[in-house]
């Protein structure tokens, strides 16, 4: 690939790529633009240049406190992911480095726990949450989100760990490391890119989970998905306001995703693709 790429080729690729990228990004871009319009502008037809009014944001904040659901989103997404990693890393370690005949089946089974449509188990789960007294609690939601994403966590970590040569773990064993030393000092740091991307992916999935987070919370543990649910069909077409609320709901995760794009890609390379 060390042959020079002709500038004309490069320019045409650049144009094509930007066109595609902007097309894909357009709905988000337009939402951001709309959020900076006044309500009148918002329904007045296509217009890419807003009046940069922050009115909608102010209104959204007046109507619904943003800080609490934001905090809850962070706590639930990060908490459930960390908890998931704590349980998932040992499991993935075991499956990757001490596989049995049934490991593949177990993995598939884990994925299959995600197949039950949420609506069908709402009442059972609701009853369980009531019985355990964890309704609308951060703890309950954290555990639930962890359980929902655990299969993906184990799966990604498993594929990632398999890329790590077993000899390194054996070396640690020879060096006198016990199991904890082996996992904590050797495996985990080596798997950092994979763990990081697993972490990111699961934060995204947990952040965006919008069935259970709306149905099992009221005020204490309600995250941004519940926040956005209170704007989704108001009386009147408040699109600037809806856009502002939407931007507020997705901005944190979007920004996190942008900043960690490299990490996400790097980890996924190892984790998902040989």
């Amino acid at each position, binding site marked *: 690939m060390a042959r020079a790429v002709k500038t004309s080729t490069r320019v045409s690729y650049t144009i094509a790529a930007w066109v595609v990228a902007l097309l894909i990004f357009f709905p988000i871009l337009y939402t951001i633009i709309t959020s900076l319009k006044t309500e009148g502008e918002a*329904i007045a037809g296509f217009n890419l240049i807003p009046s940069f009014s922050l009115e909608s944001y102010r209104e959204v904040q*007046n*109507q*619904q406190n943003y800080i609490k659901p934001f905090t809850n989103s962070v706590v639930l997404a990060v908490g459930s992911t960390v908890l998931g990693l704590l349980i998932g890393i040992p499991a993935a370690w075991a499956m990757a480095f001490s596989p049995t005949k049934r490991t593949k089946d177990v993995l598939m089974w884990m994925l299959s726990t995600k197949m039950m449509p949420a609506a069908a188990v*709402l*009442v059972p789960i*609701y*009853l369980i949450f*009531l019985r355990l007294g964890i*309704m*609308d609690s951060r703890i309950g939601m954290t555990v639930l989100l962890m359980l929902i994403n655990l299969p993906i966590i184990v799966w990604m970590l498993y594929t990632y760990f398999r890329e790590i040569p077993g000899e390194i773990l054996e070396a640690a064993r020879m060096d006198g490391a016990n199991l904890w030393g082996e996992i904590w000092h050797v495996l985990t740091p080596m798997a950092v890119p994979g763990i990081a991307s697993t972490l990111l992916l699961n934060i995204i999935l947990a952040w965006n989970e919008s069935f259970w987070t*709306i*149905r099992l919370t*009221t*005020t204490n543990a*309600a995250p941004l998905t*519940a926040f956005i*649910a*209170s*704007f*989704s*069909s*108001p*009386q*009147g*077409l408040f699109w600037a306001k809806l856009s502002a609320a939407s931007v507020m709901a997705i901005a944190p995760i979007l920004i996190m995703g942008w900043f960690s794009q490299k990490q996400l890609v790097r980890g996924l390379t190892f984790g998902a693709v040989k």
Partner: protein
Amino acid sequence: AAITIATVNNGDMIRMQGLTSEFNAAHPDIEVNWVTLEENILRERVTTDIATGGGQYDILTIGNYEVPIWGKQGWLLPLEFSADYDVDDMLPAIRGGLTVDDKLYGAPFYGESAFLMYRTDLLEKAGLTMPDDPTWEFVGDAARKMTDRSAGINGICLRGKAGWGENMALVASMANSFGASWFDETWTPQFDQPEWKETLQFYADLMKDAGPQGASSNGFNENLTLFQQGKCGMWIDATSAGSFVSDPKQSTVADKVAFAIYPHKDGVDNHGNWLWSWNLAIPTSSKNADAAKTFIEWATDKAYTEMVAGKEGWVNVPPGTRTSLYENQNYLDAAPFAAKAKEAMDAADITKPSVKPVPYTGGQFVAIPEFQSIGTTVGQLVAAVIAGQSSVDDALAQAQSTTEREMRRAGYGR
């Protein structure tokens, strides 16, 4: 004590939220938590919670559809208010809808019926005048005459988006005014009757000839915007729209709007019986029922109305709950639509939805638990007709069979 209030994201409710501090000033010992959700999710959330005895909420915002059903189930606490509260001031139609076995289960916060809004200028241009008691025949004729698609004007805007509270509110009340009914006295669905066919055919033809583009995805909000932008000649919808279309700040046609009572079919004495109210109620599972009752009293008594009027003007007070409001000159001055709205509300009789004998109460809905699902399914079938994907006959046949199926499932035949 802390109370959790589940509410919908309507303007009046949001305003109530904004006034929480006023409540706290009066009742510093009661902490108020709000859970604001979109209507359907709220209903679903609250149903699950009540039915499983979850006790997550102390006050529910529910419609006059749920109140009698849930009251009967024993899910709500009967409300008894002090004399100051003046229960007898409530509009009788509203109060009747919230009462089961003489006990009041919900305090109305806001109520509405439906009426016909129209553009005086366009009607005039069409060479017509609005009769006092318009018929559908007149409405159809006027709509077609007002339609000028090249100018972006649709003769009539009607709800088309599927849902029991969306297009079915209109279609069901329309069916009532055409003389149709949902069920006969043995709970047999009536979609195979000519009245339904007539209703639906009329509706479909009208939307085709004089309705806006993409009518099947229009709900209240979309039609409101269309009307405000001058794109509709007529619009039949909730009376609460009256304040929006006649508010010059929002509406480009504020000075050209007039109101008329809900149409009926020539020879059928029924104005659709559209009646809706948002009410505050206390679930039996609430652990802070007393504090909840305090709040409800605060939010639904006359003083609240005056407080809102003082802060936001008379136009913005929650309408449709108390007779006294419609006797208040300040309000009548501020709200030109108020008289017609009151007339509409008085004309609605939810104890007698259809001219035929029926075993249910209701109006634009049928007050049985199964209606949500049946209404939504039928709403989808109707929307498919408007979207041009199904014929009237097919839709009605399907409506008939699925409703029969649902009713059998629910045990009505048993």
